[in-house]
């Protein structure tokens, strides 16, 4: 059966011709039940070698990156740079609702697989292209990477400490965000295509996605106040108090935005430290009232938080409805009792990597449950199933393609 049962997108077919920029888009759609076919070059996707790898076993090692990013997909190999490869790709595109690709602008056109060609084969098809800078504009042919997109998109100058260089976030967040936006746009385009019988070309620029995500309150604010946002450690400009505060055995993150939360915090600080000044009415109300006193309030709070363990401050703060959270390590997340009680981590058995725990559902549908439908595909694992059983290629044709290095 080509279609996996149960997910919201069950019955939708997606071809994924994607590197790191688009791999998470395919995962989002596949874990929601779409039949996502990952099309790899015959030599295999280069991310199959990304470290860290699984422990050496009798069947070799697998990349943890690849295992996580390709759950629920099927996999075929195909050299789209050969005439037979192009023809097979077009045949596959006839059966698909969506193609997600990340090649440099103009590459698909040069292979006669651009939007116009694919549209002739399948007018309802949505083609989603994810590139560093988009399909148009003076930088369209610029080279990109997660780091370069994070820099040019404006995320790095507002991440980290003032005295450090700009820095990027862990785990390719520019590409993850671009993939998530690509999934949003692809689904919107699919909804429109179903109603109108006409697909479209979706043009995702990783730089624009980063600019959008990191400037959710950026340009308009700057035009108002003339203050260019900069790195400023852990506190946020608009929220007072906010930041990482030191405890006896580590630190916690604390943020106050609502007037009521300030009142609750000030009372608690007073109870514990006897500080009278913190109850001064001039500190009450919106964060903007406290903005001139940020340093003073931080001194009051440092005296307060240093009397607690991080765990005690977290739990008691939350019981008082104050937004205090731990600064978790990866091990802290992996062992979190709250996540465990929700069954967040999923066990997946992969033919060579074996049984491992994976991060699970980012959202939970009540009627069409999110799940990992299958482990990441081995290289060319579904060649026979898809080319022979579904497209109807003969065994001898398959062998010829294999001998010719097409698959």
């Amino acid at each position: 059966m080509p279609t996996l049962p149960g997910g919201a997108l069950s019955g939708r077919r997606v071809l994924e011709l994607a590197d790191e920029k688009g791999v998470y888009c395919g995962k989002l759609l596949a874990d929601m039940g779409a039949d996502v076919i990952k099309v790899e070059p015959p030599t295999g996707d280069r991310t199959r070698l990304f470290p860290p790898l699984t422990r050496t076993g009798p069947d070799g090692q697998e990349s943890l990156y690849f295992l996580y990013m390709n759950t629920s997909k099927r996999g075929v190999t195909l050299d789209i740079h050969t005439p037979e490869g192009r023809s097979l790709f077009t045949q596959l595109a006839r059966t698909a609702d969506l193609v997600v690709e990340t090649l440099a602008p103009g590459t698909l056109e040069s292979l006669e697989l651009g939007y116009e060609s694919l549209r002739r084969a399948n007018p309802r098809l949505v083609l989603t292209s994810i590139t560093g800078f988009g399909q148009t504009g003076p930088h369209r042919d610029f080279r990109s990477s997660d780091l370069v997109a994070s820099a040019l998109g404006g995320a790095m100058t507002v991440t980290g400490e003032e005295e450090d260089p700009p820095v990027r976030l862990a785990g390719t967040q520019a590409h993850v965000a671009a993939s998530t936006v690509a999934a949003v746009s692809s689904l919107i385009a699919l909804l429109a295509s179903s109603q109108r019988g006409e697909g479209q070309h979706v043009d995702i620029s990783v730089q624009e996605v980063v600019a959008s995500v990191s400037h959710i309150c950026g340009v308009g604010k700057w035009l108002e106040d003339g203050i260019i946002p900069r790195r400023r450690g852990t506190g946020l400009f608009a929220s007072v108090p906010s930041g990482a505060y030191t405890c006896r055995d580590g630190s916690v993150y604390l943020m106050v935005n609502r007037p009521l939360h300030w009142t609750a915090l000030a009372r608690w600080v007073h109870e514990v430290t006897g500080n009278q000044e913190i109850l001064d009415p001039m500190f009450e109300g919106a964060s903007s009232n406290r903005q001139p006193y940020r340093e003073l309030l931080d001194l009051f709070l440092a005296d307060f938080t240093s009397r607690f363990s991080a765990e005690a401050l977290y739990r008691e703060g939350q019981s008082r409805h104050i937004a205090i959270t731990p600064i978790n390590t990866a091990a802290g997340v992996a062992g979190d009792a709250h996540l465990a009680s929700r069954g967040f981590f999923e066990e997946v058995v992969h033919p060579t990597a074996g049984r491992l725990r994976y991060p699970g559902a980012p959202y939970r549908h009540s009627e069409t449950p999110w799940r990992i439908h299958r482990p990441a595909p081995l290289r060319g694992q579904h060649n026979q199933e898809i080319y022979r059983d579904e497209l109807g290629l003969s065994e001898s044709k398959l062998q010829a393609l294999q001998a010719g290095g097409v698959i």
Partner: protein
Amino acid sequence: MNKAGLMGDGSEGSPALAGLRVVEFTAAMAGPWIGRFLAYCGAEVIRVESKSRPDVVRLYTPPRNPEMGIQPRLSPWFTDWNAGKHFVALDLRQPLAVDLSKRLVARCDLVIENYTAGVMDKLGLGYSELKRVSPELIMLSSSGYGDSGPCKSYVTWGPNIETLSGLSHLSGFPSRARTITQYAHPDAISALHGLVAMLGALDHRRRGGGGQHISLSQYEATVAGIGHVMMEALAHGREPERLGNRSPHAAPHGCYPCQGEDRWCAISVSTDSEWESLCGVLDKPEWLGDPRFTSLAARLEHVEALDAEIEGCTRGCNDYELMESLQRAGVAAGVAQNTEDLFRHDEHLAARGFFEQLEHLQKDRVTATGLPLGLTGTPGHSGRSGAAVGEDNDYVFGTLLGMNRQEIQAAIEAGAIEPADDS
């Protein structure tokens, strides 16, 4: 006024989500940004607010005119997260307001809420209640910890999720215990994941399925986005290394200082031919023969020395000129731009029309960051911003729900509908 919701035929030439109607019970960013995208694509989005519990984003004092006090319509955040929506004001503690909310939901396709888990149920507006008035409803509930588990009622903001999820601990330079963004990264990531979930459910419904409830934990959505990093802890019981700007697959891979204050250029070099191009642009032919740098493996091994050498060159360079030269030579490079750079100096974003000019009810026009959807066949558009709490009471209760003047007035007197602010 946008009456797209009343046309309802999704005809050609109209925006992609024309005909869709959405109600929001939201606050701050992680919820409202979802509705912002839907409105941009042509959905009619109605946001329910209350004067007794104003959105923190409305508690805005104009920085250049603090004497004006709080100006709920002028906040640029409010524009960025809420442009194009309709606004009604209801005091949801009043039974009549709850009843009106249900009547509104009955006329809608989607509901978005991001109150603390359990609040909608207490108000009598939980999914099981709303499903009765709208059996095909798709409802998204987004909260910090999700709607089950021992911490479900905990209070969080975006940066709390940043530290809770491990993102802060895993990010940044090895010398720092944690690294935090100024833009609450998890808020955007959670909103985008919420959109994916809702649109998937909508596609399912349009293809013959029913409605459903979607629960999103911002904590879990953020962990999913760094799941590939988390795998090392899950598979090997090992804390992933903090890499800063470095990469296990590329070297040099960093953000290097340039001329001027706080000016930097990021450079990524994966292949040997890119390395040769870099040496050419920086005029360092001697590096080509340097055994420390002749292969990626060697460059990774001597990455400290490599970065120090490159810094020594870039310090004398203009950031934009360096980027242009490297890009011309086929090397991935980009200036670490700030807000002003994006808006004033990025000719590429300007050519693509990334920033949007919006109609603002009090300021005439304002500029907002663009939405990066790239729907070339059905381009989106931002509607007006600067609406007051209750701005669209008359349209929503009168035109949409068919209440007459007296009924609306009675609901105002009963304290259920709050009259529009005219400040």
